């Protein structure tokens, strides 16, 4: 039997359950729309400005880095899978060395990103300036 049919069936159920809950609640729940109720919550004050502002570019740096590392990591899986068999066939060194080299390259990449501050959370230069004047 194909596993993916079962997974497909599971996905259908996993989709139907939340949708079904929404439908059931639709039958039960009241709807009393009212302007003040619909106001955006901002601690009881009127929101100022647009919510979707331009965020500091550093947020996206982390995301880019993730894409790089994630793909590299996925490349490790085939190696991990055949590793024990490969030791038998080509010996420990030949099985291990390519991975070590690969991980080494990744680590160098990480060190580079680390040094450039790409893996740190965004600090705001404005906020730092403000701090300096304060103290």
């Amino acid at each position, binding site marked *: 039997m194909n596993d993916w049919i079962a997974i497909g069936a599971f996905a259908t159920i996993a989709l139907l359950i939340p949708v079904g809950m929404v439908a059931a609640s639709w039958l039960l729940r009241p709807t009393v729309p009212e302007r003040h109720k619909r106001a955006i919550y901002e601690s009881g004050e009127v929101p*100022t400005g647009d919510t979707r*502002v331009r965020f500091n570019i550093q947020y996206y740096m982390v995301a880019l880095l993730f894409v790089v590392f994630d793909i590299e990591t996925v490349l490790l899986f085939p190696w991990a899978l055949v590793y024990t068999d490969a030791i038998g066939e080509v010996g420990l060194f030949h099985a291990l060395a390519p991975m070590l080299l690969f991980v080494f390259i990744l680590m160098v990449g990480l060190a580079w990103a680390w040094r450039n501050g790409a893996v740190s959370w*965004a600090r705001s230069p404005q906020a730092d300036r403000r701090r300096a004047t304060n103290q």
Partner: protein
Amino acid sequence: MSTLEEPEVEPDGLDIDAVHERLGDRVLDTEEHINAPGIIIRADEVEETLTILRDEFDFDYLACVSAEELPDRYETIYHLKQFADPTRELSIVVPTDRDRPISQSAAHVYETANWHEREAYDLIGIEYDGHPNLKRILLPDSWTGHPLTDDYNQDKPQVVSYKAHENPLLEHTKEDDGETMLINIGPHHPATHGVLHLKATLDGESVVDVEPDIGYLHRCEEQMCEQGTYRHQIMPYPDRWDYASAGIINEWAYARAAEDLADIEVPEYAQILRTMGAELCRMAAHFLALGTFVLDVYGEFNALSMYAIRDREKVQKLLEDLTGQRIMFNYLRLGGVAWDIPEPREQFFDDTRQFINEDLPESMDEVHDLLTDNEIFQLRCVDIGVLPPKQAKQYAATGPVARASGIDMDLRRDDPYGYYPELDWEVVTDDGCDIFSRVMVRVREVEESAKIVDQCIDLLEEWPEDEREIQANVPRTLKPDPDTRVYRAVEGAKGELGIYIRADGTDTPGRFKIRSPAYCNLSTLPVMAEGDFVADLIASLGSIDIILGEVDR
């Protein structure tokens, strides 16, 4: 016994003649306030005079600014003190014209004057020339009139509009590194400890600018006190300023000011009762401060906040036995306290000793295990929310906030009152200046308070039965002489809680001004939080330990 109440601390070293000599013609006149000599100066020489006093006479502490309306003039009084010796006091009186109440601002000399003068402008209507941001602070911007003036119409309805706040940095950040976002934290937010509104401008997660906006809990406490009689009716109100169990300390602030004003002596036995009650209150208040602070750092399901509440509950039980109420004690009376230790006395002493000597050390060990040694807690709190001592003095921070910035001032020791001078305890200071120090100062202060209570219990137990005088003989109606002025402070749970009273010859005060410690401490928030992350802003706010009832009054 009078030596206990007023240990005749002559302003040693404060050479008032030298001050007069240095100020020269700037001194228009002098007047005598109880505790402090008053100097009257011109309204356009405020900044100059205060700069001289601050730089040359070491008056680095602007304790309070009280403004008032008199029949022929408006007056602003700057109550100056020294952090090194708070008994050296000086009142700078700045009268202004009734028709044109404009006075020079002191905000450039003392940062703390910024908020105080805004409040004076808001409530009295004196305008401060040169003030960086002279707008209303307690009342909404759209308010018309100044409620503490005589011609203010109390019955006129006010329209309070509901509008968006401006982003103060919107203009000059457009071309800068990132766009800033104004986010309103509070008044209805889980971490503002009441109805406080922080206008925070964020760049990403960093706080670029934060401005506390207060007044949501303004209850006209000063005005209510001005309408109550000295003898009875004012005393219930102080309980409601710092309502987080610090009631007896607050009552003591009023009692101390009024007793100075009316020259009442308090029996020694009552002093011990007051001291014990006040320290129990301090413990309860610090427990609550700890409990709510850890909520901000741990999240809402942590155990320590509940353990702190449990310990506070034990203190409250003792206070309930003593005063009959759990929070709003109304235990002090002018000239003493309402009642003695409850019968059977032994029971009360045993309960208290049980708490002090057995329960408390155990829970303190737990606090240290949960907080002090916890690496993640240290990660969150060490070197975060830094308040340098210089800034702390500028903003007149007091209490645990100042002591955690290395400022060694505690009115219980430096301006002694009650029975404190006779007892063996220490002032806790820490020079970490960060959130961690502020929390630790509170934790250690609880231990010091326990020492004080323990000694009080011993004294009370051994006190001869026929000398247990709990109240002095005080007349039913008090009418202090007109135009007597007093500013007196006690060490509240949050810092210096001062009361300024001007008597006008009737049985109610002519002006009643509360110097609230949390108000001044809160104004340091921008120094602590700007440049840090949002999470640090919340932790800093929690570490200041504000009670909005006291901030807004």
